[in-house]
């Protein structure tokens, strides 16, 4: 399989009032076409900023310093002109967000927003054609009465519905890469599970590669082919999902797994705030391997 996303030695720092804060310390990560890859780590580990760098959004923030290579489909995102980066967004790559309801614009109908997204690919597309394609896509995410949903506003739909709408919207232009940043974390667990199942089937069907960003190991295990574990801006472990789960090599990965609450357990597990072992050299991270 060919490599779709190839990140090499990615570094990110923010220039703030009190000097420079390093966020990423040389991340290397790759995704093959059609591959589902998860990036797991706790809040503040730097996982969400990676998605914003791949989209080229952080490069346009004045306080951010990005270095390293972000290869996408043969092009280099970091050195691209902002206009060219914007051309990739919404067409070749798209993103879904944590809270579906607040991520959709409250003042436009679903149909309107679908049309906007579709015209990123084909600006001359008629509204009727957009609607027809949107209905097709909404049917794929198992939304009943898709033609009626098009006339609705996001606030008239449930969170689960909006999540499906957002998945449909993100996939409608057949992107090569889908970035999912903690999708559905704002939803309740059962709805989240349903929609992730759906998303899994859809990306498999369309052959879309996914970078799935999450702190939830249970979800990752179901969804991803391969896992990267990120801690404090470093990749500490990487490997096929099954092997990482069966035989976690790094102390932080083990701590992360212990952190998953179990119904049969005795309350919340104890996880140390910081441990020297978490900061130990990256045991299995082979930098530069594509």
């Amino acid at each position, binding site marked *: 399989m060919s490599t779709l996303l190839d990140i090499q030695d990615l570094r990110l720092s923010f220039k703030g009032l009190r000097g420079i804060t390093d966020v990423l310390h040389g991340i290397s990560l790759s995704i093959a076409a059609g591959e589902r890859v998860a990036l797991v780590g706790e809040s503040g580990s730097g996982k969400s900023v990676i998605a914003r760098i791949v989209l080229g959004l952080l490069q346009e923030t004045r306080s951010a310093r990005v270095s390293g290579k972000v290869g996408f489909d043969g092009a280099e995102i970091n050195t691209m002109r902002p206009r060219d980066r914007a051309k990739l967004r*919404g067409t070749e790559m798209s*993103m879904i967000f944590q809270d579906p309801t607040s991520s959709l*614009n409250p003042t436009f109908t679903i149909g309107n927003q679908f049309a906007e997204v579709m015209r990123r690919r084909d600006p001359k597309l008629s509204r009727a054609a957009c609607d027809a394609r949107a209905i097709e896509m909404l049917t794929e995410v198992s939304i009943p009465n898709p033609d009626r949903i098009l006339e609705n506003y996001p606030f008239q739909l449930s969170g689960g519905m909006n999540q499906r709408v957002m998945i449909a919207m993100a996939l409608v232009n057949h992107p090569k890469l889908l970035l999912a940043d903690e999708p559905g974390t704002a939803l309740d667990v059962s709805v989240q599970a349903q929609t992730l199942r759906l998303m899994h089937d859809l990306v498999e069907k369309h052959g879309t590669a996914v970078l799935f960003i999450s702190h939830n190991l249970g979800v990752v295990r179901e969804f991803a082919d391969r896992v990267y574990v990120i801690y404090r801006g470093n990749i500490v472990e990487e490997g096929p999902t099954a092997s990482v789960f069966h035989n976690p090599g790094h102390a932080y990965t083990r701590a992360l797994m212990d952190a998953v609450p179990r119904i049969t357990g005795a309350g919340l597990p104890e996880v140390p705030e910081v441990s020297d072992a978490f900061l130990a050299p990256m045991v299995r991270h082979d930098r530069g391997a594509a």
Partner: protein
Amino acid sequence: MSSVLRILLRRLGISVIVLIGVSMLIFAIARVIPGDPARIALGPNASAEQVANLRAEMHLDESIFAQYGYFVSDVLRGDLGQSLYTNRPVTTDIVQFLPATLELVIFAGILMVGLGLPLGILAARHRGRWPDHVIRVLTLLTVSAPSFVWAVILMLLFAFYLPLFPVAGRLGDSFDIATVTGFLTIDTLIAGNFSAFLDALSHLVLPSVALSLSGIGQAARLTRANMIETYDKPYIEMAQAFGFFPSRIAKRYAFKPSMIPSLTIIGLDFAAMLGNAFLVEAVFAWPGLSRYGVAVILRKDLNAIMGTVLIIALTFLVVNILVDLLIAFLNPRIRHSTRASS
């Protein structure tokens, strides 16, 4: 669109209640002011018999409720009584003076929205950089001085030291334009007299700028603040993630939601210009309703005061209804909540 109609009907219903309240207030104030209205109307030389006759004619001997009834039925028939100042029916005066004020206020309103909103958008889009700083300083300056101060400053600068615009009035003496709408910018065009149109326009510039400056500042600052708040919303990041260009995001994705909270205030500002026009009209000798209002207040001309207040209250209500409709148009949540609740 039937939900918008429902909002309109509800607002109209509320407006009727407000108008009843206003009429009671005006009526009460008119009765509280010391002095016999009949005596004031006839002047100090009238005989006691004349005063008694007029009192009977004005129903002043009857109960206060009956008097209010007469007042309301007169108003409903469009009869606001006689003005002591001009010796004409108050309605005639209002018909003559209101268009000048409306023309001024509408022009100022156009300036407020036409300059204030783009400045606010510009500042929000360049937040923290020099256009933002310049706009913030300028708008703070315009907000912090009342309109009559601006009127005097502008008059000194651009009519006196640098005579670019006329000092006072609505139209040069050399023009004779037939009154059709009372709006001189429209009447001159109807008359086909283009140089008169330009003259009317140049008379409008200074008063309307003076009247609108603080409104422009307010609108710009409000738009900036609400735009910046909207820029932090997840749906803006989503729009960025879908690759829409920054100008499109500003226009379509950020501006519309951010206008919803701004509009209410801008509507109130617009209506408040009617009040500020009192002083601006006085400075520029603008022959409008506000200047008429000042003159009749100074003369304790009760009928004319009541008429003026009533008309201004009415204009206030109309502006508010328009703003509410505009908000309902922008905010689907309001449109659809009325449908659900009724």
